[in-house]
């Protein structure tokens, strides 16, 4: 079982690094080309979410991403230190279109508007995209696990 683990300071720039690594390893692990866009987006969502949580709760703690290449499947696990969003179970996101389209106050200024998208939105995107995904709350934090089928092409090359 070949594994790559990446841990990174909670900065937006490193979400790109994580995406890049996940994509390269998924490709080499034999995930279908058709699925690579999905891997890229899902990993990006999981890592952005983790970075956001760490930035507000524990900016010094690294976010951890594990890439696990098994015989016929490729799994990405992203671990953050936060508790799982209480109310939203991924998949049953029910966006209020009218509320989203409601005007901002005219004096909103140039700060980001608060709470544009409900908590759990990122997870909902992942669960809408990835057939095999799961979120668990464990002692070390929340684990988002996403699995894709693969055909093994990364046999160790004898040197």
């Amino acid at each position, binding site marked *: 079982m070949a594994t790559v683990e990446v841990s990174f300071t909670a900065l937006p720039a490193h979400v790109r690094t994580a995406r890049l690594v996940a994509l390269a390893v998924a490709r080499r692990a034999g995930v279908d080309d058709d699925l690579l866009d999905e891997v890229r987006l899902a990993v990006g969502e999981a890592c952005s979410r983790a970075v956001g949580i760490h930035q507000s709760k524990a900016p010094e703690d690294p976010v951890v991403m594990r890439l696990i290449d098994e015989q016929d499947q490729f799994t990405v696990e992203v671990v953050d230190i936060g508790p799982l969003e209480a109310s939203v179970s991924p998949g049953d996101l029910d966006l209020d279109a009218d509320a989203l*389209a409601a005007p901002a106050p005219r004096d909103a200024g140039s700060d980001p508007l608060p709470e544009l998208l409900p908590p759990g939105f990122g997870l909902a995107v992942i669960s809408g995209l990835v057939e095999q995904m799961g979120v668990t709350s464990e002692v070390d934090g929340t684990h988002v696990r996403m699995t894709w089928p693969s055909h093994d092409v990364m046999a160790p090359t004898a040197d």
Partner: protein
Amino acid sequence: MDLSLSTRTEGDRTVVTVGGEIDVYTAPKLREQLIDLVSSGNYDLVVDMENVDFLDSTGLGVLVGGLKRVRAHEGSLRLVCTQERILKIFRITGLTKVFPIHASVDEALSATD
């Protein structure tokens, strides 16, 4: 790949052409651009996403923010997108109900709905 942004005026509408990746790293730049446009009086925006090759929920959040800001002035924010992989994200999240999505800039410029 980074984010590229350019804007131009077409009649009473403003077209923002976005290229590259809209993600947690670049979304703040797009947000600033939209805020600048609104605060300088551009309330009818067309965001051309044909050259966007990555969009995540941070990017969606910025687009929703832009919509709310133009709505504060009875304006509009229309998207131009025909790329399946980008459209998919709007569909999954139900945001197709929130944004008018057009197949070309011309269509978005003449739309009145």
